[in-house]
C-alpha cells in the first residue's frame, strides 16, 4: 500500500514538473520563433537569452526528476 502511494507520488512529481516546464518552454520557443521570423536579424541577439531561459525552465523539471528519483530510492 505504502509502496504504491510512493510510486504514485513519484509519478505525479515528475509528471506535473514536466508538464509545467514543457508548457513554459513551448511558450518561450513560440515567442522566440515568432520574433525571429518577423525580424531575422535579431537571431544573434536572441540566441543566448533564449538558451538561458530554457535552462532555467528545465531546472524545475530537473528538480522534479530528482525528487521523484529520491522518492523511489528512499
Amino acid at each position: 500500500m505504502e509502496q504504491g502511494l510512493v510510486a504514485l507520488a513519484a509519478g505525479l512529481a515528475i509528471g506535473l514538473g514536466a508538464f509545467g516546464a514543457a508548457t513554459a518552454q513551448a511558450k518561450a520557443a513560440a515567442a522566440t520563433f515568432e520574433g525571429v521570423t518577423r525580424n531575422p536579424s535579431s537571431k544573434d541577439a536572441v540566441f543566448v537569452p533564449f538558451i538561458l531561459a530554457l535552462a532555467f525552465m528545465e531546472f524545475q523539471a530537473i528538480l522534479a526528476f530528482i525528487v521523484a528519483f529520491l522518492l523511489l530510492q528512499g
Partner: protein
Amino acid sequence: MRCFVLVRLAVWWLVGSVVFTGVAWAAGSGGEDSAVPTFFNIYQQIAYVLGLSEKVYPFMSALLALAVIAVMGLRYRSYVRRCLASDQLEPKEKFSLESLTETIAKFIYDLSKDLFSKASPHGTALIASLFLFVLVMNLSGLIPFLPPGSGDFSANLGIGLSVFVVYHVAGIRAQGFWPYIKHFSGPKVNIPVLGLLLPILIFVVEIISHSFRPVSLSLRLMGNIFGDHMLVGVFTGMVTWFIPSLLLFFGVLVSIVQAFVFSLLSGIYLSMAVSEDH
C-alpha cells in the same frame, strides 16, 4: 564533400550503435530484475585494482577530461591562436579534430566578447576551461563502459564552488572590499524608515540567492546528465537493440547545451560581480 562527411558520420554512428547495443546485451543486463541495467564499469574496475572506494569515479573522469583537454590544447595550440587572431578564419571543410578545435575556440571567443564588454583574458580563460572541461566530462559518458563524471553531484559541486570563489574574489579585486559588500544591499533609498529596513532585507535575500548559485549550477548539470544516462539505461532494459542508440544523439545535444549553459552562467556571474554599475 560535406555530403561525404555526413555519410561517414552516419556509417560511424551505425557501427557505434551496433557495438553499443551489443555491449549492453553482452553485459547480460536485460530488464528482468530491475528497470535500470547495471553496466560493466571501467572506473569501478580501476578503483578495485588500486584498492580504492568506487566513489572516486568522478575524480577519475575528471582526470580523463584533463588528459583529453591537455592533449588537444598542446597539439592544436597554434591553430587556436591563429583562429583567435584573425576573426574570419572559417573552419575547414574536412571533419577532423583540428576543425573541431577551431570551431570550439571561435565559439568561446565570440561568447566571451559578448559577455565582457572589454577584452578580458582571465574571463575568457575561465569560460573556455569550464566549457571544455564540462563538455569532455559530459561526452565521456556516451562511451560504453564509462559513466559520466558530471552525472555525480560531487564533481559538479567542486566546479560550482570554485566558480563561486573565483567570481567573488574577482569582484572584490575590481571594486574593493566594502563597496563590493555594499552592492549586495541594493540601491540607496531616501525614505525615513524604509531606507534603513529595505537594504537589510535586500542584503539577506541577495546572500541567500548567491549561496544557492553553486548548488543550482551543479544540480542542473547533474540532473541533466544523470537523467539522460538513466534514460538510455531504461530504454536498454526495455528494447536492447538499436533504439537506445537513437538516444545517443540526444545525449550529445544535452551535453553540448549543458556545457554551454554552465560556462555562460559562470561568465554572467563573473561579469555581474566585476561590473560596477550593478
